């Protein structure tokens, strides 16, 4: 039995915890404003908002209900389009109508939820971010022009306002007033929440679900009857901290949390921007670092970044703990050095040294909300112009997320020059074994990796390079 609030209604249900929230909303609650467009997190027609209590305040985030197990909303507030509707159109809805932001209407509830969610999750409003909040929503009809106009128009209602609160949103009719009571109601509900969850290993015969963004794409049908072990709310598996000169990230930390971490922003000022290339906002709100690593997809973006930071995994099965370098974790296509009952409790890497550089590159058919054709990260330390430490990764070019060991060997103790870079790119392409698939031919991926290796250096050391010689 779980309890949650769906829009303005308190729900207690015995439905299987593995069904998707989308199916629960549409089939059991008969709320049909939330649409199914793809069931793989790629269209946003199913977007909903999830509110959870953090320090007695409700924090909302958008999510794809097609990838979210029902079991994960225990004690939370779920908002669908029906929970936003009021007698009159909200300013977001009205702007979409007036600016031609809807045609067939199938995608539209998802856009309304995303954009309304933007106002609910940001204190300072700006139109560029408002548009970006819909980066997980696909519209096949409008060409987005009317949608963008609507976003700009609805943000203009807050011109000059520095911070906006739920009260402001209720006053301006962005939200119905029941939202004001949600914090109190959630405090009561969360008293009923199952407190026995922990991050101490995976109990026998259970399937671990973190964000579910890989699992639910791969096998949502078979998860319905599984005994699921949800870890997305387990506090000990979350968070980003500094310990012993290392940055440590809990295994269930989401990509959004990584993006917004002050610690990471301090050491990796570009990381937030890099991670904009990861899925969409609702995907990043759910996708976790542990899931990215264990899913072992050769193109995993976080994995790619972590390889270049020469990260260590902290595994536990409740009884014992062990550590292993991420680069030693992958044994072959989707085979890992991991026991059944082991959980990734955390990932850690050394704080970047002074005079160190980091860069992430990703190219995909569509820049945003797409899987890389090839990605690559590089971490590099210089001392007197000489490369004293370097780690480079390459994704999409081998059965596993690849650590480019030979390229590293080659670069160590060298000066950065056109010739060195060019040779390094050459060596990198000899370490790989790409296959041709929907993300590109082997020939393309090889060429692309060469380009991305060049790109690392061109971006980090433009003054040391004669571009003309390289391209």
């Amino acid at each position, binding site marked *: 039995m779980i309890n949650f609030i769906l829009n303005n209604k308190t729900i207690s249900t015995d439905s299987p915890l593995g069904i998707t929230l989308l199916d629960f909303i549409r089939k059991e609650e008969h709320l*049909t*404003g939330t*649409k199914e*467009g*793809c*069931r793989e997190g790629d*269209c946003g*027609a199913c977007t909903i908002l999830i509110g959870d209590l953090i320090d007695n305040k409700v924090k909302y985030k958008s999510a794809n209900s097609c990838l979210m197990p029902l079991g994960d909303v225990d004690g939370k507030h779920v908002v*669908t*389009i*029906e929970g936003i*509707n009021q007698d009159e*159109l909200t300013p977001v*809805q009205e702007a979409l*109508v007036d600016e*031609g*932001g*809807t*045609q*067939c*209407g*199938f995608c*539209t*509830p998802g856009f*309304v939820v995303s954009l309304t969610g933007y106002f609910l999750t940001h204190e300072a409003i700006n139109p560029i971010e408002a548009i970006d909040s819909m*980066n997980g929503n*696909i*519209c*096949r*009809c*409008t*060409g*987005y*022009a*009317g*949608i*963008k106009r609507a976003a700009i128009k609805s943000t203009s209602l807050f011109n000059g306002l520095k911070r906006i609160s739920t009260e402001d949103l209720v006053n301006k009719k962005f939200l119905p007033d029941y939202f004001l009571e949600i914090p109190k109601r959630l405090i009561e509900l969360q008293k009923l929440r199952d407190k026995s969850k922990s991050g101490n290993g995976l109990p026998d015969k259970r399937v671990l679900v973190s964000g579910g963004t890989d699992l639910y*794409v791969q096998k949502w*049908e078979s998860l319905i009857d599984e005994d699921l072990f949800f870890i997305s709310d387990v506090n000990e598996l979350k968070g980003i901290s500094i310990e012993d000169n290392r940055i440590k990230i809990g295994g269930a930390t989401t990509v959004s949390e990584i993006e917004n971490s002050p610690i990471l922003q301090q050491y990796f000022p570009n990381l937030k921007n890099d991670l904009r290339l990861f899925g969409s906002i609702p995907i990043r709100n759910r996708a976790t670092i542990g899931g990215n690593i264990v899913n072992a997809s050769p193109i995993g973006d976080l994995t790619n970044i972590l390889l270049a930071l020469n990260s260590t995994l902290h595994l536990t099965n409740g009884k014992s703990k062990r550590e292993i370098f991420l680069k030693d974790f992958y044994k072959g296509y989707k085979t890992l050095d991991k026991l059944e009952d082991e959980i990734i409790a955390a990932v850690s890497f050394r704080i970047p040294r002074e005079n160190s550089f980091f860069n992430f590159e990703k*190219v995909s*058919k*569509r820049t*945003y909300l797409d899987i890389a*054709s090839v990605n690559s990260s590089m971490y590099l330390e210089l001392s007197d112009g000489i490369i004293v430490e370097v780690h480079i990764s390459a994704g999409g070019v081998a059965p596993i997320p690849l650590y480019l060991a030979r390229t590293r060997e080659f670069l160590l103790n060298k000066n950065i020059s056109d010739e060195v870079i060019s040779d390094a790119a050459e060596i990198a*392409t000899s370490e790989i074994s790409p296959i041709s698939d*929907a993300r*590109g*031919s*082997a*020939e*393309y991926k*090889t060429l*692309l990796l*060469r*380009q*991305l290796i*060049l*790109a690392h250096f061109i971006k980090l050391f433009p003054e040391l390079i004669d571009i*003309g010689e390289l*391209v």
Partner: protein
Amino acid sequence: MKNFDAIKHVRGESQFVDDILVPQGLLYGYVFYSTIAHGKIKKLDYSNALKIDGVIDVITAKDIPGENQIGGIIQDENLFAEETVHFVGHPIALVVAENQLQAHAGARAIECGFEKLPAIFDPREAFEKGEVIVPPRIFSLGDVNKAWKECDYIVEGKVESGGQEHLYLEVQGSFAYPTEGNGIKIISATQNPTAVQRTSARVLGIPMHKVEVDVVRLGGGFGGKEDQATAWAVMTALAAKKLNRPIKLILPRQEDIRLTGKRHSYSSDFKIGLKSSGKIISYEVTFYQNGGAAADLSPAILERTLFHTTNSYYIPNVRATGISCRTNLPSNTAFRGFGGPQAMFVMESAIYKAAQVMGVDPSFIQKKNLLKEGDEFPYGQKTKNCRAVRCYEEVESRYRISEIKKSIDEFNQTNRLYKKGVALMPVCFGISFTTTFLNQASALVHVYTDGSVSISTAAVEMGQGVNMKLHHIAAKMFSIDPKRVKIDTTNTSRVANTSPTAASKGADLNGYATIDACEIILKRLKKVAADELKKEDPSKIEIKNEIIFYDGNKTELIWQKLINAAYLKRVSLSAQAHHATPNIYFDREKSKGEPFAYHVYGTAIVEATLDCLRGTYTIDSVKVVHDFGESLFPIIDKGQAEGGIVQGIGWMTCEEVMHDKEGKLLTDALSTYKVPDIHFAPKDIQINFLEDVPNPYGPFKSKAIGEPPFMYGIGAFFAIMNAMRSFRPKMEIELKAPLTPERVLLSLYSEIPELTLQNK
């Protein structure tokens, strides 16, 4: 006035097939289909499927009481494969179960064995082997053979354009339930309710009057639900009939993409001859259309390719050959533009290549050859109210094209790794179904005693805003509060023998029919009003904002009272009207005629920025001057233009339909088939309405809008190409769309042989 449909949409209250409340006892279907591209079915054993919990039945060709035939233009397509399968995705059976999961599990449990036969995927290969859907068609004007001699330049080339998945956000779906007296009711997401009705009747072996098809709205169609919504609707009807239960079939996205056809990919050869002045003298082209396994709409689409061979240009000598080739892929089908975009891409490619050879800018050739008043198209029709030059010149001057070009040159000179490119794209698109008899529609208008009005037409709302346009027309005709009007569902029992909502003609045909039906009622109402007011002359009655005027003077009588009076006087408050586009014809033997009611014109400027290191690009802006006539509803028309453009850009850039060697679709999900997202779409899209251009052939002087703007997207290809050439001036030009980042990068770095060899 707000768009009434849009209000429902933003509240999530619009009902799509899967949202409609269902009757009791609903069962669900799942399609079982071929996993090979061509072969004989050697074994089909579904006994294990029937053992699965919840599975009720497996419906196959054997269960068909009528004909196993769903072909439209040509009777060459079965509902379920019997002996042979012709493409991966060819339906073989429908598994029916208590819920979707069980139906899917049932399908997995079916054992099916095939004996493979050779399969063809390439249209040229199909042509060589004699696999054509219809005999080749030729359109010609003047004499190309003679004309080559007059040319200073003759340029030849090959052009490829890829397929395109419709990716309407609402997948294909239908539900059906038996009605009394051996009837069936089908709720379908189709652009073509009559096709669903006719085909269901044929497959079930019952007369059409026993089949009622109802369409509320579609979550996007774009042509993908013109012919290809039929199969799923018929399957539900068949199963509902057999099992005497309501059946719903919603294709999961992956099956929707796998099982249905796409925009036709084309492979074409061109030869173009020009004077040094830039004047095109002669143009010869052969289009090899990849038709897929069955005819579907391919012959009609091919015909439109031929109609649009010369895009927006007058060319005195033309010879265009179109060949529809049969391959082992799902039948390709209608998609916004209907063969027109493929033709225009070849035309623009030919100009581009010629410009390169001549060392001029393509716009130099474009401008020299734009259509003028009275110019003849290869199919014999002459331009009327031609606005090709006006749109082109207006967009050039409004946006100062020479300054754009100058600033791009400066950018390209100062940036090594980023380059910009610009291209102009003129479009001329003919409006009407080129199959003349389809240019008819009817409307049924009821005024109820409370003064509210219901309109039923043949038009299907799928996002193009036809409902709101009809709504607007009806409210305007009666001069009443738009709130009184409701556009009803499209229903074959209310409006019969409908043409599909397609060819951008929905608002034109049904708008005229609605005007006529309203006119009939108005005429009666005026008589009633004159009687009520005890006046002589009904022709002096006028309704303005619900108030009745006589001879220009306001009277006491208002709409509501007038309706009531008419009812009490036993005057009919309902009317039906039929409209057929006048004065159009086409002689298919001679390939000459006046097939189009009118043409739509416009020109776009498209700008792109290329990342020369990574091979990625952005389409920065699209600036358009377009001839909308007098728009019925500007925000709808603007939206159609914006949406069409982005879809067209997608077709030219990131949307790539890929198959493996066995004919299996590799891009069968949104994760692998990429359509433009909010960031990929150009940041800046500016749509300008050409001013003061009433269209005498459209309702209230409007023009059709659905398809033409799609083709502005073609400009994106050439804008990127220009940026590429600015980085690699000597680069070989490959006229192959989509121009994905992969194609871009491989072209830019083609001279790095050691890399390409390493991984072979």
